């Protein structure tokens, strides 16, 4: 008994020490934050606390504008959040290296959970966030955008694609396609190119993203006289066996299977269709992006799969090549569409603000009104990784043309 209590004591002591060391390691950050949170006091020497963030920024002596980011950095959807955070970080570093306007990025984890996302948002607000780059995913995005709207902070979401995220909020904008637009564009594309006559759809009815695309696709297909022969669903909980859905599509004689879903279940669908000897055309949307970079994935399974995506890592334009090179060097993998969305979001804000005289002291609500005027003004055109000549409507939706891609020999090839 005595030994046991001694042991408990030692463990408790160790935990206390761990707590203390944890504080010590982070001291740089809180002071940093405190200093910039009260800019009026430390206005004369703000560069002291910022050294780590902006190495070359000393010449300008600018305090950085505070960008907040929210997305899943852990949990099942972490692949998207991590990609956006990495992409945004690269953009911030590049912009800061230019020497002009400086940015500071604080990216918070929300585990793809609405409640945690609002908590993360509050943390960022306390930190003094001026503009939000987020959220990454739709469900948290709906919750946070309401808060953002009430607090008058401008938000540009890299990848939360549901219309519910921007609906009725004049200060929330999207960098990615909205879901309905993807559904319409897909139906359009399939008809224009004559890709299939009998279409089967398999979608995730537990996911706002998938359902949103599916609904628009079906109504658009109807007006375009595309014949839909089979509609089947799955949820995240039943996303392992697709034999039933595929057999139904096969029996209905579908020659094209439309998959408005993410690439993880899509990879299972492809391998199971292959095992049962069913070889229709597969057509995906931007969620399909990432399938080729999936570790150990047999890319021959994806041969001939078509998808609409705003970004292709193998594109040969200078911007994409430079981004892919830098990303691979820093993070050891090929960036997906989400990384490009994160990168573009930061650059879009930079492009919008670079000619204005905003500083770290500009209040979030002033920034918000300014950015709304710029984004919805009609003159603002942005060229980025995920599209050329992007413009935004007053609703917050982006207008850009999707790129049709087909997978050939394990790489994306443009279809146009």
């Amino acid at each position, binding site marked *: 008994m005595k030994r046991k209590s001694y042991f408990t004591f030692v463990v408790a002591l160790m935990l206390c020490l761990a707590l203390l060391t944890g504080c010590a390691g982070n001291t740089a950050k809180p002071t940093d934050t405190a200093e910039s949170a009260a800019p009026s006091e430390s206005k004369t020497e703000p560069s002291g606390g910022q050294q780590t963030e902006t190495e070359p920024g000393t010449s300008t002596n600018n305090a950085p504008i505070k960008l907040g980011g929210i997305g899943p950095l*852990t*949990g*099942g*959807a972490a*692949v998207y959040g991590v990609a956006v955070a990495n992409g945004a970080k690269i953009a911030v570093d590049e912009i800061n290296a230019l020497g002009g306007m400086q940015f500071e990025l604080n990216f918070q984890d929300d585990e793809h959970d609405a409640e945690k996302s609002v908590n993360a948002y509050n943390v960022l607000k306390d930190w003094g966030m001026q503009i939000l780059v987020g959220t990454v995913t739709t469900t948290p995005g709906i919750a946070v955008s309401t808060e953002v709207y009430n607090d008058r902070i401008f938000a540009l979401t890299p990848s939360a694609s549901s219309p519910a995220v921007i609906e009725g909020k004049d200060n929330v904008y999207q960098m990615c396609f909205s879901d309905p637009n993807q559904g319409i564009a897909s139906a359009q594309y399939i008809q224009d190119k004559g890709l299939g006559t009998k279409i089967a759809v398999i979608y995730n009815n537990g996911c706002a993203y998938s359902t949103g695309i599916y609904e628009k696709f079906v109504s658009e297909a109807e007006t375009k006289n595309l014949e839909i022969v089979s509609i089947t669903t799955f949820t995240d909980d039943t996303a*392992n066996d697709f034999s*039933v859905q595929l057999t139904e599509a096969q029996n209905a004689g579908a020659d094209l299977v439309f998959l408005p879903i993410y690439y*993880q279940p899509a*990879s299972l669908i492809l391998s199971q269709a292959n095992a049962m000897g069913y070889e229709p055309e597969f057509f995906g949307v931007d969620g399909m992006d990432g399938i080729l970079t999936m570790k*150990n994935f047999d890319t021959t399974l994806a041969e001939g799969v078509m998808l609409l995506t705003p970004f292709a890592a193998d594109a040969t334009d200078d911007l994409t090549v430079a981004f892919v090179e830098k990303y691979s060097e820093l993070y050891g993998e090929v960036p997906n569409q989400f990384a490009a969305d994160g990168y573009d979001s930061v650059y879009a804000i930079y492009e919008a603000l670079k000619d204005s005289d905003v500083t770290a002291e500009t209040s979030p609500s002033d920034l918000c009104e300014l950015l709304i005027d710029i984004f919805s003004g009609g003159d603002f055109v942005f060229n980025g990784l995920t599209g050329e000549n992007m413009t935004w409507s007053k609703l917050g939706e982006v207008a850009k043309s999707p790129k049709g891609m087909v997978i050939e020999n394990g790489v994306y090839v443009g279809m146009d």
Partner: protein
Amino acid sequence: MTFLSYLISGISLGSIYAIIALGYTMVYGIAKMLNFAHGDVIMVGGYMSFMATTHFGWSPFSSVLFAMGVCTVLGILIEQLAYKPLRSAPSLAVLITAIGVSYFLQNAALLIWTPNPKSFSSVVPFDSLRLFDGQLIISGTTIVTIVACAIIIVTLNTIVNKTKIGKAMRAVSEDKDVAQLMGISVNKTISVTFAIGSALAAVAGVLLCSAYPILMPTTGAMPGIKAFTAAVFGGIGSIPGAFLGGILLGIIEILGKAYISTQLSDAIVFAVLIIILLVKPTGLLGKKVLVKV
């Protein structure tokens, strides 16, 4: 013919549930605790086999053995570190600890292997079997899964009913204190149970990932819950019950999807579970236990 192919998919899915359910049911039957970390040991098994084949370049068969070895050690470790100190604690404390271990394993996997999904290449080298002029196609993985499940059930039944350690297990299951008085090492018996359960989890993990080739830190979570349902369905604590429950659950899930609604497949599975439990509260093959006060 379509019905037959659905039935085979169902049996194949059910066999995987059955192997996982065996792990739950053995641990419950003998240690009287719900090991919710079981689903995550499956995931670890999958990753081990994945690492062995892709990073070390081992053959599929040795990768399975490797995964079983690692999971066995992991299972014993979990039992020693997390559950053994709570042997006399209320069962609720043990349950919460099990959930904690489950989260620990998932998040550790997230750190080690990152959240990016990995594509698992099937460990089964056979091609699909084509019957009736190619109308019925049975994949090699399906056949191996069903055969593996059958072998495991027979072996396990033999171990529990015919061997000395099996006798000890049954004794501990019946009454821990009396078993101890009879000279049976309760701790050792429970450790062996965990070792067997975890080795089974590794096999289940490899088969699960071979049939549905995607590997993420959350891969084991949902099949784990379904298998737990299967164990309750068949009567938790009963080995033939776990087998029957697993197979039936798989078949109901697939046929429900095929003939009733793809949207309601899980609702159907759990509705059947509720009905069975209303009629037979101990599950299909569960034993009625009279508790004397």
